[in-house]
């Protein structure tokens, strides 16, 4: 188990280096950088000298490979460099916004789990009845309705009751009520898709498991149908669902990118959109590395959890 874990962790490194190479050179294919947006963006009077000076200050005048090496050395020391827009360390920019985004992500996970398990189970148990069709339509809806529009609908319905969630962020340990009344809505907006994906997975894996021999054995023994489902079937069917949940959790940032915009939350997603609009290469690179590392890490955790949840799987 330990050896397997270590080799898996070492396997993460080539993938992350690949991500670093890809994102670094992709951003520099086409000329144009942060300096232009920063100095020329307002249409102000800027001389070529000023542009060159700013480039020099940010190190953008050095050869590409030198810049890349510099960045990689920093990465190896967990130093993501400085934002080219604000000059503050990238890590700092990310950390001040992480709490909010992480909380929305966790709330969305809770929301998705609470809804998807019963939905998926019902759909599988009542296969090809109106319940199954209803769940199918609701879940495909979750894959189809854009989370930002769903968020807008939520805001509109709240406005209908003449109420709006608080605008400023309060940490949950300061004032749980203010915190939750603000963040529960974006969590619902991103959670719908999450719930739909998981419910579909639970349905299909439960249908597969229900055909297994041990289910027939359990029924033949005269075990109550309720117990057959909860003890025998669901336990085995949840494994693929856990995988999907883990991967979707790592990808929740994708939903947050647009949803934070709707709810005007100053989180990771909004930071990412801002840095793309500003051509802030360092910040884009740093965030991509963080997201990719998180994804690879979650992948690892999911794989290791398999061994915990399913005693048949043992890693040598």
């Amino acid at each position: 188990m330990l050896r397997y874990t270590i080799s898996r962790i070492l396997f993460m490194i080539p993938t992350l280096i690949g991500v670093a190479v890809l994102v670094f050179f992709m951003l520099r294919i086409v000329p144009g950088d942060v300096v232009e947006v920063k100095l020329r963006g307002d249409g102000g009077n800027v001389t070529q000298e000023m542009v060159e000076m700013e480039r020099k200050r940010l190190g953008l005048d050095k050869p590409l490979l030198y810049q890349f090496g510099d960045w990689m050395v920093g990465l190896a020391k967990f130093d993501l460099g400085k934002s080219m827009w604000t000059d503050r360390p990238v890590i700092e920019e990310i950390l001040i916004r992480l709490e909010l985004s992480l909380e929305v992500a966790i709330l969305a996970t809770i929301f998705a789990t609470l809804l998807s398990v019963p939905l998926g189970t019902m759909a599988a148990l009542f296969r090809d009845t109106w319940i199954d069709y209803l769940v199918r339509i609701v879940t495909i809806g979750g894959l189809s309705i854009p989370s930002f529009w769903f968020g807008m609908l939520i805001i509109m319905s709240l406005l209908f009751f003449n109420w709006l969630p608080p605008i400023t962020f309060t940490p949950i340990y300061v004032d749980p009520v203010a915190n939750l009344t603000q963040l529960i809505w974006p969590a619902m907006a991103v959670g719908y898709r999450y719930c739909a994906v998981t419910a579909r997975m639970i349905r299909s894996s439960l249908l597969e498991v229900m055909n297994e021999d041990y289910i027939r054995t359990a029924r033949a023994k005269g075990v109550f149908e309720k117990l057959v489902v909860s003890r025998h079937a669901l336990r085995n069917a949840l494994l693929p669902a856990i995988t999907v949940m883990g991967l979707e959790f790592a990808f929740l940032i994708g939903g947050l990118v647009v949803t934070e915009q709707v709810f005007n939350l100053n989180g990771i997603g909004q930071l990412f959109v801002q840095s793309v609009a500003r051509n802030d290469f360092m910040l884009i690179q740093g965030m991509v590395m963080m997201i990719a590392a998180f994804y690879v890490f979650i992948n690892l955790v999911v794989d290791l959890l398999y061994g915990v949840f399913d005693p048949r799987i043992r890693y040598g």
Partner: protein
Amino acid sequence: MADVASALPVSVPLARRRGALLEFSRQQPLGAVSFVVIFVMMFAGLLPQFVAPYDPLDIDFAQILGAPSWEHWFGTDAFGRDIFSRIIWGSRTALVIGFASSFIGSAIGAVLGIASAYFGGRIDTWIQRFVDVLLAFPIIVLALVVVAALRKTVVYGVDVNLIIAIAIPIVPRVARVVRAAALTVNVMPYIDAARAAGYSDQRIIFRHMAPNVVAPFLIMFTAFIAQAILLEASLSFLGLGVTEPTAAWGLMLSGNAADFYREAPWMVIFPGVAISLAVFAFNLYGDSLRDYLDPRFKV
């Protein structure tokens, strides 16, 4: 012999017989309904000038934020433009970008997947490494990085780089599924026969393997049209996709639409319904196509 053939995991029941459409609608009623929605959308997208009652770019300051009425079914926006007409024209934007990027992404992904399975060995390892790297990006994050890298290049009124940005995240996902399907084809006797006959790699890949992974390819292609439309809407919403004054659904929801939640809710509701309906139709169609073509196949 018949037993062996039926036990083999090949999947090309692409019905060539007549009445395939009828058979499909009988087996998959939901799929047939979604096909009708897609058909209507395509008609609107191909010939918007005949369907739309107004010019989508016509600014009418006498009609600002008009509520839905007989003249303007879905109301008008902050510039007095007819929302119904903008949605009709927007379906052209969504379809062009959706089809083009899904096709480009799926085609490249399919070629990579088949090559990976056919050549095996070192080529397989390298392609899979590359796929792994691309898969470590959430779809929209990868698309945004490409948008940041390539900026805008407009050809015939379509932003080519936006299509590329949406196509790239599709590539690794299709490559992975097609590789799995191609691996089962690769061990078939007829591939051995083709090799023994001395055909070139290129010929075997395109003439012998590709036709046999058409089913998973078609399923992925349809499903990713839905994803592509959704992604285009999200990017346009963020102001990094289609730009004004082009009519695009995501764009209609961005910017000042949010200032009129109270005064003009129709500005928010109708474009969102259009996106959801289109994506829903393609998702449902892809789902039914999968059940029809290959019930064992999972995306």
